[in-house]
């Protein structure tokens, strides 16, 4: 684009610049696609290797995919081909995951910003946050099972409690490192406390907050799976059921499904982050 020669006349320039632009876009798309050449290669090698091994624990990917189709994707196009089993499990899992994530996000950011802005509060609560961050969340599961028994409440509680710490820690860290000069300036210009929070503190803490939210989203998926191992529905339960039934393609299928879900969640989050942080140039 930058090396394109300047067009001689105006009339021609619109026509001539149109061609190369489509060309570059197409070439960019093609080169992006070409970068994925490893994917079919890996799939092929996986298929051939598993076929050669004939090991029951390592079914070929083609078998995994057909098994996944039989299990979940025999429904009508109107429901995105999801069948009843899928519809009885996927939305519930996703709903609990998002509910826990939103709860942890709102609670963690609110409390974290408060802690970050008050150095006294920070000194009081820092050891507790460090402890919460260090707790291996899955170890809490028996405790939550005893508190709530199985069900949606237990799962959402496990997810929320397990993932709130990175959000809390990062929000506190972000709110603590607001440039003091910016706050002084805002005060000089007569911004109220609320305005300072919304216009100075939150925006400058946002990159850290988003880093925490992203980490907690991938943690939420892990905790969702673990909590559903001890439950009667959801993707995690399907995985556990397949394991108990010695249905290896089913186990692999659930893992692939969870991988796709994790990938989509991460991509969706990146999109959200990009929109929210467009102004922030120092972002990686």
């Amino acid at each position, binding site marked *: 684009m930058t090396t394109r020669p300047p067009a001689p006349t105006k009339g021609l320039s619109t026509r001539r610049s149109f061609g190369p632009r489509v060309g570059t876009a197409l070439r960019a798309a093609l080169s992006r696609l070409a*970068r*994925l*050449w*490893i*994917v079919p290669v*890996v799939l092929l090698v996986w298929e051939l290797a598993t076929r050669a091994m004939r090991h029951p*624990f390592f079914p070929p990917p083609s078998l995994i995919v057909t098994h996944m189709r039989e299990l979940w994707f025999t429904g009508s196009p109107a429901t995105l081909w999801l069948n009843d089993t899928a519809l009885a499990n996927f939305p519930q899992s996703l709903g609990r995951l998002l509910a826990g994530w939103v709860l942890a996000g709102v609670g963690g950011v609110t409390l974290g910003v408060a802690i970050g802005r008050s150095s*006294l509060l920070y*000194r*009081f*609560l*820092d*050891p*507790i946050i*460090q*402890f*919460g*961050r*260090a*707790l*291996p*969340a*899955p*170890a*809490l*599961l*028996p*405790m939550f099972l*005893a*508190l709530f028994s199985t069900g949606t409440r237990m799962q959402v509680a496990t997810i929320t409690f397990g993932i709130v710490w990175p959000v809390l820690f990062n929000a506190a860290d972000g709110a603590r490192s607001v440039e003091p000069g910016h706050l002084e300036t805002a005060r000089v210009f007569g911004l109220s406390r609320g305005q300072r929070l919304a216009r100075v503190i939150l925006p400058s803490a946002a990159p850290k907050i988003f880093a925490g939210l992203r980490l907690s989203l*991938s943690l939420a*998926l*892990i905790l*969702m*799976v*673990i909590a559903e*191992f001890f439950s009667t529905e959801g993707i*995690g339960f399907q*995985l*556990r059921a*397949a*394991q108990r039934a010695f249905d*290896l393609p089913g*186990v*692999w299928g*659930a*893992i692939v499904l*969870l*991988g796709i*879900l*994790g*990938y989509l*969640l*991460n991509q969706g989050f990146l999109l959200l982050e990009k929109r929210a942080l467009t102004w922030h140039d120092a972002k990686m």
Partner: protein
Amino acid sequence: MIPRLLFRRPFDSALFCGFLGVTGLLLLAEAAGRLGLVSTVQFPLASTVLVAAAGLAADPEFLLDVGATFAAWAMGLALTVAVAVPAGLLLGSVPAVERALRPVIEFLRPIPSVALIPLAAFVFTERLDMKIAMIMYASTWPILINTMYGLREVDPLAKETLRTFGFGRLAVLLRVSLPSTAPFIATGVRVAATIALILAISTELLAGGSDGIGAFIILAGSSPDGLTLTVAATVWAGLLGIATNGAFVWAERRIFHWHPGTAR
């Protein structure tokens, strides 16, 4: 410095305030139990848990379990470092390899590690092997990504200088890139250490087995005062997590005190 602050203005001391914060929370939990806000059948009193936790510290069986978890943790982490650091150096210094493997990494990384436990339960007959494999899968990513990221931050001038003096690619990698990437690798290892502990305990919880903190928690669940023991063991797991993380932060500060980005 700290004692003087402690005497003059106690609320300036992080240690004192932190102590008050923890004590306050414990008292609050104790009061909630005693006043009947939280049923003691559902959730044990804070004091009961603390007594149980203190008792666990002298319980040889629990100490054996802690030792088993830590052995798996240390072995898994060491193996992960041995694999992930060279892999990160390779990916970070040879762009063609990085470009080729990036899609594979981006598809593997989002797979929630615990989802692999049911599969690993079939594949591995030895529980220790399984724990180590799960630890390696999950804690490879932070080390790999940090190593790759660190290599990108190496001062190009230093590399060029060495190259001008006739050093080869490998020499430049070992003499300039690796030392200046080391703080990033250390951060990756610290994050990986936390993940490794989580994976070790999760594997013990989900795949059964006879030793480890996770196995202790599962076993405790079936005893009459199971919940107290479970919570007490979880408290220990959290304290161990703080201790290992603190040790890594301390080591990082000592070794890489010259690096501006060293963890606070």
